[in-house]
């Protein structure tokens, strides 16, 4: 019986042997029918047909989607597991792509990209949700840390990050610092103590570390013109501590490191460090605003004037943005030289993400925010002698690198 359907030649492999057989294939309305080339189809009503395979179009699969112009194709079907049909005929391929749309290139492209698009939507939803609801998974985890854990982490970070710079200590200086700290601590609704230290480091900065530790640098104290200026900075750092920014920062940095390992262990490293850094930096601005708000509240409750802090910020703002690592390297230079020095961009790496524990240079917005506050009754945070003692707290401490000629102690 001659066939009304388009007929082609191909090779069929049963998947059990590596040999293959020539077959004649018909493109029927619902699928492919094929039989050995030297046999004819017997279509007997009521009898099972035993020498013809039939593969439905909608169940066909190919390893490689059919594109226009393809000259051959290898098809399989779950209807005969392991078997395959190879046809090297342009017309067959063209017709098959029409009948079995799922193996065409266009259909494959949509199936291939759809899961990725779904993933993108899910990631965007999660990210957007976290942002919109102001959630902080890192902060939630930081909250769960015990005090001992926080204190330990803080000490480890102190040693690795600041450890090269000696801690300054004189009896009078320590007393003055403790008095200032206690005055502000009483205003923060929290009974736990703060561990405030001054290190002999010409960098003008202050750091809040996990475990309620605050570091002021000798450079900062030198730059300040009054005890109120130092108190303002200290209150700001207490704000960071109260809001758990240091602990959150550590959790975040660890989480980003792990995520980067996961994402980029299997793929390209190019985006990894940059992405990690961008996320860490963006976080900083929000933290600064929060710390400002809490710091100003504490100053108010402690009846310390905030105006000197604004003045201090204005003087600091004249300099270019800091690079802590660059400043560390240029430690030998004087403070004046450093004000005009071009600071380099932040470098990459885990230790760099610790920079988010340091305060960022103040902006015009923050200064105006301070000035806009309503005035209130104030009293000095330290007297003259105490302020002098604080200013000289590093007088008997050696520097990290070279021994500087000892300063004469003034009365």
């Amino acid at each position, binding site marked *: 019986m001659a066939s009304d359907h388009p007929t082609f030649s191909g090779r069929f492999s049963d998947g059990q042997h590596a040999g293959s057989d020539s077959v004649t294939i018909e493109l029927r309305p619902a699928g492919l029918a094929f039989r050995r080339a030297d046999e004819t189809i017997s279509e007997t009503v009521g009898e099972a047909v035993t020498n013809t395979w039939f593969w439905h179009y909608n169940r066909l699969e190919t390893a490689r989607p059919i594109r226009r112009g393809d000259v051959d194709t290898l098809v399989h079907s779950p209807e005969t597991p392991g078997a395959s049909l190879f046809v090297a005929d342009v017309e067959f391929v063209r017709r098959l792509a029409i009948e079995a749309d799922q193996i065409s290139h266009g259909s494959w492209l949509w199936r291939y990209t759809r899961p990725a698009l779904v993933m993108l939507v899910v990631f965007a939803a999660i990210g957007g949700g976290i942002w919109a609801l102001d959630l902080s998974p890192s902060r939630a985890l930081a909250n769960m840390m015990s005090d001992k854990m926080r204190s330990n982490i803080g000490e480890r970070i102190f040693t690795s990050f600041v450890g090269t710079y000696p801690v300054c200590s004189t009896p009078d200086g320590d007393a003055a610092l403790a008095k200032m700290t206690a005055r502000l601590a009483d205003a923060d609704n929290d009974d736990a103590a703060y561990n405030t230290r001054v290190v002999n480091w010409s960098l003008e900065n202050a750091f809040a570390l996990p475990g309620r530790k605050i570091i002021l640098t000798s450079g900062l104290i030198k730059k300040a013109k009054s005890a109120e200026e130092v108190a303002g900075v200290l209150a700001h750092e207490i704000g960071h501590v109260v809001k758990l920014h240091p602990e959150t920062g550590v959790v975040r940095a660890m989480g980003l490191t792990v995520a980067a390992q996961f994402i980029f262990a299997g793929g*390209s490293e190019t985006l990894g460090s940059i992405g990690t850094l961008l996320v860490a930096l963006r976080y900083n601005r929000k933290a600064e605003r929060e710390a400002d708000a809490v710091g100003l509240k504490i100053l108010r409750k402690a009846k310390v004037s905030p105006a000197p802090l604004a003045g201090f910020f204005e003087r600091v703002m004249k300099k270019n943005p800091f690079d802590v690592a660059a400043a560390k390297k240029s430690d030998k230079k004087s403070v004046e030289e450093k004000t005009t020095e071009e600071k380099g961009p932040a470098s990459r790496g885990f230790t760099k993400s610790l920079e988010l524990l340091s305060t960022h240079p103040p902006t015009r917005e923050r200064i105006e925010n301070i000035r806009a506050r309503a005035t209130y009754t104030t009293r000095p945070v330290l007297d003259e002698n105490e302020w002098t003692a604080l200013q000289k707290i590093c007088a008997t401490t050696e520097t990290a690198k070279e021994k500087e000629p000892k300063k004469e102690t003034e009365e």
Partner: protein
Amino acid sequence: MDQTASPPEPPSATPAFGQRGTGPGEEIDIKWRGSPWSLTGLSFLNFLLSVITLGIYSFWGKTEVRKRIWSSVRLNDEPLHYTGTGKELFLGFLIVFCVFLLPVVLIPLAIELLVEGGKQIADIIRIIAVIAVFPLLGVAIYRARRYRLSRTNWRGIRGTLTGSPWRYAWTYIWTGILIIFTLGWIIPYRAHALYKRMTNEQQFGSEMFRYSGDVGDVYARFAAVYFGGIALTALVAGGAYWFLGIEIPTTPTAVENMSAETQTKFVWFIVSIYVVGIIIYSILQAWYFASVYNYFARNTAFAGGQFDMKLTVCGLVWLVISNMFIIILSLTILQPIAMARASQYFVDRMSLNGLIDVDKIVQNAAELGTTGEGLAEAFDIDGF
């Protein structure tokens, strides 16, 4: 029942193709079909999808690239069929990530942050982890090959590796350690032993591959490169010295006493030795590689046929340099094209001579593992 109106039912019994016995066999013609550059669109698409899924999609991307490359390899015009899935690669990676990578990153970090003197302990753990990687590298290479072979079909018949990854890894480690101590003279033995183990444990269907090469022949090629390289470098050094006409300073004071002009000449001398040395070394390495792999192929048999390979030095050097440009200039996005070009180069120069009785080759009964290449993914081992 009216059979003519509706399509015929699938056959109730699998039709038999009749007797399958040994016949005269057939020639197997190995060819590459298509252009590697046809992967350009897919490469960019994979990059984009990888970025928006934070890298998760790279496993599916890799799988799709393999499917395309495999189907360009034709045996008697019929393509190889890659049956692996992105899911298998992803799961394999996840397992290794959770069991090995994550602990290796997190545990030292936690120790460093929480424990007094933790940094030293953390560093020790990290060093131990790096050392532990070496045996695992060998295992990863073997398992990755086994995965790819088991996912490679031709006419429905798949390949496999039947041996133990740990025995392969053992050879990999001890010969690797000895490279420095033998000044490189273990290298030919290493190449021969690893190729022999991998090949003789390799199967396509029920038929084994068989490598019958001799390690002495590999050493002969290595010796040519080794001593030839030394001789050539000495020749070039001598020539440069003669050409530049300078005294080689033998004491530190002599170095200080050189005039500025002599110093400049001396620097140029050193630089030119270095550059020429690199060029010579690269060409010798290409010659060694081509020579050794042609030898390996010519001594590998399968199902009554003998392989042959015709790699050339110029071809290899051009392939490596051009692929390097493609990868660097595209910031690795077009790496699939480099892979396809390399595959094309090797396939076009490969042949299997003799009559292969394909009917004798039956499907192998080895079980398919369900996950793929986790170790290889984690350690970034890749060929294609």
